[in-house]
């Protein structure tokens, strides 16, 4: 599929080049003349400084001076081209008139050529950094959150929606893994200049662990290295932003682009610019979409009789009688209906521009009774107090009510619950427990869906106000203050049920995050002697954040209707919040220099002083440098008329990650010792103050050096645009909690132990294959490759510490976060026992960790690194066809070479535990007779082993063997849409200005070898390092939408 597309594009490129290659120059009569003129902005009558005045068809040109004036010698009949950043280009034929006043219109179109960069804007053609841009019109607005819509759209940016849960997290990785800290690979997100609370697993996860769980006794079977089902939900903090408010998204990738964000730029930066008023007359637009979603696929399950038969056989008795037939999964699934309404009004004149919007989203999960609501409002405006002074604001208020926290858990339980049990008792109440079965899950997924209550309600305000003073056309002083306030209350209530949860339980967490930002910048855009041009900014920024969080829990409620935790029979937790604060003071500057439109050079520098840094290393500087060469401006290429632009660029620079060491630097921290129920403990009447984090003053900060080499090429009147980047990103001083000798007083401490590299390339290609009045075909294609390698560690290889960190493995010379697994060698057809590969090349029916194993003291030598969860290649392909008023768009995303652990399958093949899971029908092909060749071992096999004391350990269903590790590569038709624009002629007599209707399908087709439901899931939410686990994770939805856009 991809190959064909590439081929097609090549054919088109060469085909069109022949056509566009033929330009004819006409001869002209020559009469020399010198013109003096002034270029003035039509909008405000201010002189336009630094505008380019070029004689068409030649290299001859000047720039306007400080007062917008220029002088140029040329011939009568020549055509002058006037262009400047933010204005429409104007052409004027020279007559004999010697004085000219040229008015330039500010241009919306021209904004397309402007790229937002850190603390400023820049002309796209003069960029020397690697920046990916996506405009509003290219975003799929039926997707509730913009980050999901970025998937596959920008080279080098990998976005994995972690699950099909509404409002759930996404993992965004820009140019690979940057840190070995599971929560530190998230890019910095900046909305209208305000760095906001972004994705971060630890900050966005709401836990609602049951506060009373029956302790499991001795005995029973334990699966070695399993992943527990955690009752937690990681929200997507970016979902609060209304997609329809976004003007453009810029992704800063290389050091030259990110170094201006210093200590927070290493994992990339995403800049979001929201809309403002443009048209003179108020413009009202209305958008309404309805979406119908179903899971992309559902797992196959045993029927009740198959289940009974299987477990009766396994337990050797009629322990699982066939009493009822309940299809739990069907009873909790539904077609979720999502309604999304969005209204905006915008207008602008010389003084005031504004954009106001309101939106409402009601998204039902495909799990019953689990819905997600979002209300958001935005007001953006700027007002010119005088010609030089402008006041502006951008603000959004949003409220989300996510009552779909339990969707994941309901789904999981519905898949695993025994199908031979009735859902309800005879009296109509929900039936809990597993009687008459011998074992089983106690949860009742239907009761969970309809009776348990759970929600997280977030109020969020993000906004900024600014004052912009422009004493001269070349100088802009801007001061802005921004806030990001998040108030969140999450609540989870489990109703009473017999045996293990009498009286029910509840957990409530309140979070209050407040962030305040001040940015002051002075920007200078100036041209000297018509040939030197600078675009620079210096500035200072101050940011403070206060994060509060308090959790309480309760149990033994008198009734299921009582929700207030303080009415519970048993109350625990601490209503007093835990407070975390940090502050960041920064000074930064950027100087871009351009010589004669040909040679570009830039330097940026940022000094960050962070309260998170140890006092001794508090201020850290991050420089970057870049060079660019617009070869197409050189005389020898100037005449190649089919080449619009050829630019080579390169950059080198530094950036950092500030989140790895938590708050307050590495100073020693002490806490009062408390019992499990938070009571203070004493030693002879005195409280006990003990170390929670030892003093570690010499810990250094992770530092990332990136080298980027890039090429921008535009051909045939910009019908073909190609951007290619190669990068090398080296991270030094990797922070990792690693072993120290016990005689130092600790077992494991943060150390600067390693170096790591990412190298890769990115290609962005867009082509206008066909363009004529009635029909056009545009293709956008991007592909990225990233290879990660750990260069140095102080140990030979290390597990990251078990299930909590997904058993990921780090070793020198290997990519970070590998799967490190025992090598499953199939099933011995003679005995039905699993075979395991040993390091000496032999195979054995004894698991390497078994107590009978010859290497039981160090079984890990039998484990091998088996690839990582990040793809070798990934990207996207969009084809847009227009025919008259019809538009058809198809977007494929693809990912190749990732490993995905099919934990879903592992669970559906786990029958040895007390959960007595419902299983996949595949299990029925278990080994039955000598000579039977199958992948499923005999039911009782040597790798489910007695350990004494009545316990058994199951080595075949854990996450530490490659039995369920699969290739996660896929190509997916992410969306296909058909839009009909109602012709203007039809609207002429109406008050409508524009109207379109569209239908769309998302995730319609997936091509993958992955045997699970959906290769695009991650049980660990936003953590890229821990990605690669499908643990009955809710699959994405397959959805169909229909919608209208109306403009008044």
């Amino acid at each position, binding site marked *: 599929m991809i190959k064909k597309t590439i081929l097609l594009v090549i054919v088109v490129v060469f085909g069109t080049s022949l056509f566009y290659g033929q330009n004819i120059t006409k001869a002209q009569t020559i009469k020399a003349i010198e013109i003096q003129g002034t270029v003035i902005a039509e909008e405000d009558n201010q002189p336009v400084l630094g505008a380019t005045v070029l004689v068409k068809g030649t290299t001859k040109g000047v720039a306007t001076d400080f007062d917008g004036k220029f002088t140029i010698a040329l011939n009568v009949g020549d055509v002058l081209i006037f262009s400047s950043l933010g204005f429409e280009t104007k052409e004027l034929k020279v007559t004999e008139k010697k004085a000219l006043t040229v008015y330039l219109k500010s241009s919306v179109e021209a904004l397309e050529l402007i790229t937002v960069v850190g603390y400023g804007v820049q002309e796209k053609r003069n960029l020397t950094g690697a920046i990916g841009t996506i405009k509003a019109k290219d975003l799929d607005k039926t997707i509730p959150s913009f980050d999901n819509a970025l998937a596959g759209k920008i080279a080098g940016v990998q976005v994995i929606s972690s699950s099909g849960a509404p409002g759930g997290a996404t993992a965004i990785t820009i140019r690979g893994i940057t840190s070995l800290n599971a929560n530190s690979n998230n890019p910095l997100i900046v909305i209208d200049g305000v760095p906001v609370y972004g994705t971060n697993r630890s900050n966005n996860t709401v836990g609602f662990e049951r506060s009373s769980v029956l302790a499991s006794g001795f005995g029973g079977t334990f699966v070695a290295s399993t992943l527990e089902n955690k009752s937690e939900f990681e929200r997507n903090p970016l979902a609060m932003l209304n997609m329809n408010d976004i003007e453009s998204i810029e992704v800063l990738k290389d050091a030259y682009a990110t170094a201006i964000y210093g200590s927070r730029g290493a994992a990339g930066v995403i800049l979001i610019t929201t809309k403002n008023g443009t048209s003179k007359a108020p413009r009202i637009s209305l958008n309404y979409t309805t979406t119908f979603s179903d899971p992309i696929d559902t797992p196959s399950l045993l029927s009740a009789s198959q289940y009974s038969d299987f477990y009766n056989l396994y337990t050797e008795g009629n322990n699982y009688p066939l009493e009822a037939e309940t299809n739990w999964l069907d009873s909790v699934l539904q077609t979720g209906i999502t309604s999304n309404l969005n209204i905006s009004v915008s207008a602008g004149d010389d003084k005031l521009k504004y954009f106001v919007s309101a939106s409402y989203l009601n998204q039902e999960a495909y799990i019953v009774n689990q819905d997600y609501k979002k209300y958001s409002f935005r007001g953006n405006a700027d007002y010119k107090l005088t010609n030089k002074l402008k006041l502006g604001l951008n603000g959004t208020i949003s409220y989300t009510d996510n009552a779909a926290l339990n969707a994941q858990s309901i789904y999981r339980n519905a898949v695993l619950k025994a199908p031979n049990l009735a859902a309800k008792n005879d009296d109509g109440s929900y039936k809990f427990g597993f009687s008459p079965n011998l074992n089983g899950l106690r949860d009742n997924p239907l009761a969970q869906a309809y009776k348990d209550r759970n929600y997280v309600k977030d109020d969020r305000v993000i906004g900024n106000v600014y004052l912009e003073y422009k004493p001269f056309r070349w100088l802009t002083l801007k001061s802005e203050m921004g806030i990001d306030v998040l108030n969140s209350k999450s609540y989870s209530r489990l109703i009473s049920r017999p045996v293990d949860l009498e009286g029910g339980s509840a957990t409530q967490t309140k979070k209050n995050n407040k962030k305040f930002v001040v940015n002051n910048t002075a920007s200078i855009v100036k041209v000297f002697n018509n040939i030197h041009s600078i675009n620079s900014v210096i500035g200072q920024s101050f940011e403070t954040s206060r994060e509060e969080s308090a959790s309480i829990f309760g149990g033994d409620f008198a009734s299921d209707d009582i929700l207030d935790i303080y009415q519970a029979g048993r109350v625990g937790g601490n209503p007093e919040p835990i407070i*975390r604060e940090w502050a960041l003071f920064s000074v930064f500057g950027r100087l871009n220099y351009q010589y004669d439109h040909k040679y570009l050079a830039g330097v940026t520098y940022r000094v960050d002083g962070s309260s998170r840094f140890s006092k001794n290393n508090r201020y850290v500087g991050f420089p970057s440098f870049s060079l660019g060469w617009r070869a197409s401006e050189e005389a020898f290429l100037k005449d190649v008329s089919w080449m619009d632009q050829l630019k080579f660029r390169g950059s080198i620079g530094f950036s950092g990650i500030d989140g790895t060491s938590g708050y307050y630097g590495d100073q020693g921290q002490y806490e009062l010792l408390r019992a499990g129920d938070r009571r203070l403990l004493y030693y002879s009447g005195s409280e006990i103050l003990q170390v929670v984090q030892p003093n570690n003053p010499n810990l250094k900060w992770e530092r990332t050096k990136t080298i980027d080499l890039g090429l921008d090429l535009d051909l045939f009147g910009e019908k073909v645009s190609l951007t290619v980047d190669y990068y090398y990103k080296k991270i030094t001083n990797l922070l990792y909690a690693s072993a120290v000798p016990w005689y130092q007083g*600790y077992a494991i401490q943060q150390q600067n132990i390693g170096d790591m590299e990412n190298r890769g390339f990115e290609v962005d290609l867009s082509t206008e294959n066909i363009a004529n009045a009635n029909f056009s075909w545009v293709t956008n294609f991007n592909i990225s490759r990233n290879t990660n390698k750990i260069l140095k560690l102080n140990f030979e290889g290390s597990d990251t510490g078990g299930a909590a960190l997904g058993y990921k493995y780090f070793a020198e010379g290997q990519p970070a976060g590998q799967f490190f697994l025992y090598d499953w060698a199939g099933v011995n057809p003679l005995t039905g026992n699993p075979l395991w590969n040993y390091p000496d090349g032999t195979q054995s029916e004894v698991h390497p960790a078994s107590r009978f194993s010859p290497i039981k003291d160090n079984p890990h030598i039998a484990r091998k690194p088996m690839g990582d969860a990040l793809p070798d290649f990934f990207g996207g392909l969009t084809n847009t066809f227009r025919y008259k008023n019809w538009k058809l768009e198809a977007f494929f995303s693809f990912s190749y070479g990732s490993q995905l652990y099919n934990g879903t399958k592992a669970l559906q093949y786990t029958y040895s535990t007390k959960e007595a899971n419902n299983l996949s029908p595949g299990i029925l092909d278990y080994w039955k007779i000598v000579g039977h060749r199958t992948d499923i071992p005999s039911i009782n096999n040597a790798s489910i082993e007695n350990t004494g004391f009545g316990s058994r350990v199951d080595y075949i269903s854990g996450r530490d063997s490659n039995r369920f590790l699969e290739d996660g590569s896929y190509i997916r038709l992410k969306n296909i849409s058909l839009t009909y624009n109602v012709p203007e002629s039809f609207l002429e007599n109406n008050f409508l200005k524009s109207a379109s209707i569209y239908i769309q399908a998302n995730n319609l087709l997936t091509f993958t070898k992955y045997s699970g439901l959906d290769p695009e899931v991650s049980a660990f939410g936003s953590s890229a390092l821990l990605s690669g686990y499908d643990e009955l994770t809710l699959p994405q939805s397959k959805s169909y939408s229909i919608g209208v856009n109306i403009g008044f």
Partner: protein
Amino acid sequence: MKNVRIKIIVFIGLLGVMSCDSQLDLAPADVYIEKDVFETAETAEMAISDLYHKLFLASVGPTHVIPDASLPYVGLPPISSYANYFGGNLTPTDGQVENIWRSYYEAINVANVFIDKVPIFGQYDETLEQQHIAEAKFNRAYCYWALLCFYGHGALTGNDNGLGVPLQLTPYDGFNQSDLIPRNTNGEVYTQIISDLTDAVQGLPETYETQLKTRVRATKATAQAMLSRVYLYHRDYDACNEVSNTVIANTNYKLEPELLDLFPLNTEGTTSTFSDEVIFGLPVSSNGGNFQYGTHSIYYYNKFIWVEDDFIESMDPSDKRRTELIFQGNPNITNPNTINERTTFKFNNPEQRDDVQIIRLAEVLLNKAEALTQLEGVNDEAISLLNQIRERSGLNPVQESDFASKDALLTALYNERYIETAFEGRGRFDFIRTGRPLRNPDLTENQKVFPIPQREIDLSEGILVQNPN
């Protein structure tokens, strides 16, 4: 033009005021930072509690049981994890080999932090600062003594040149490869222990404001009593005799006439007091009980381990240590294997919340008696000390004429010492020290020494040397 310039300056000036470096000095609201902890007496006192708490964690549970279980007097089930510690095939990856090492060094680090940080940050009363440092030094010395007993190669048999344990005397301050240190010799570790204890005697108070604190925090006498033990273990009998005299002369400590007042019935495990005989102990129930910081995890009461009949029979039938300090244990036990066994009354709380006695006067008396005998052979004073112990337990006094030789008296002292301090967590060390066999009499001297944890060897890049077999 000028006007504009002024406007710009004012503009920038106004905005610049918003930011300031001092705003980066943030202090956490829910944790104490190190500087603050050691600045005031109040917080330093709370941190001192952690010194003892860490010592408690290190010295109870298996650390306490192993030395007694290594002798044939403690009953064990047929399959017992304690078998590892006297079977002769102890591996360097054994759980307790790791745990004992790790937990004592954790306690040492807390002490090192005090010794290092109080002089830097302390802003409180000089005497109290010195006292805190002295308490830390006592704790550090105690931990190194315990580590030497377990891991020092020849540390209990007079080999000063044998490899002891690495002396880590500075607090954790970040880890670099250059922080890797080799094992010091036993002699060097003893020297450090004695130096710390000698310093501690200087800085420690005679008593604290409460009777309880005097028993559970280090005093001058605590450090002296510990010195008495260390000198004895190090075979420096003169010094042992001398320092023991000071302790014995201290009127704050008296031999408790009634054994049941020394080891009272403590069913509730929530209140009890230390007797005047106790020089240092860890308050488990005296601390208010109620699982203040868990239990001591010493399971004599439930007879997971118990006292062997042979040992009970070896005691004189009238010996109060037999009649009063041996009992049936938990009456509700139904396990047929242990239902008829008897156990020690020293740990009689059903929930393992007895106070744990670490040093008491009886031991010091026996230290002195042993030292004197080593120095002078059979002598009156040693015999009278021995008799103090015997008579308290209702036994007849012995006479000089009962002992034909120095060795005979020493043997009597060794036996008395074990009967007196049995199940108090030092039996193994006393037996190795005096050349008597452990439960498995075939163990070589090398096998009586714990191996250094393999993890430490692996991390040391060859600097740490393992004990020979």
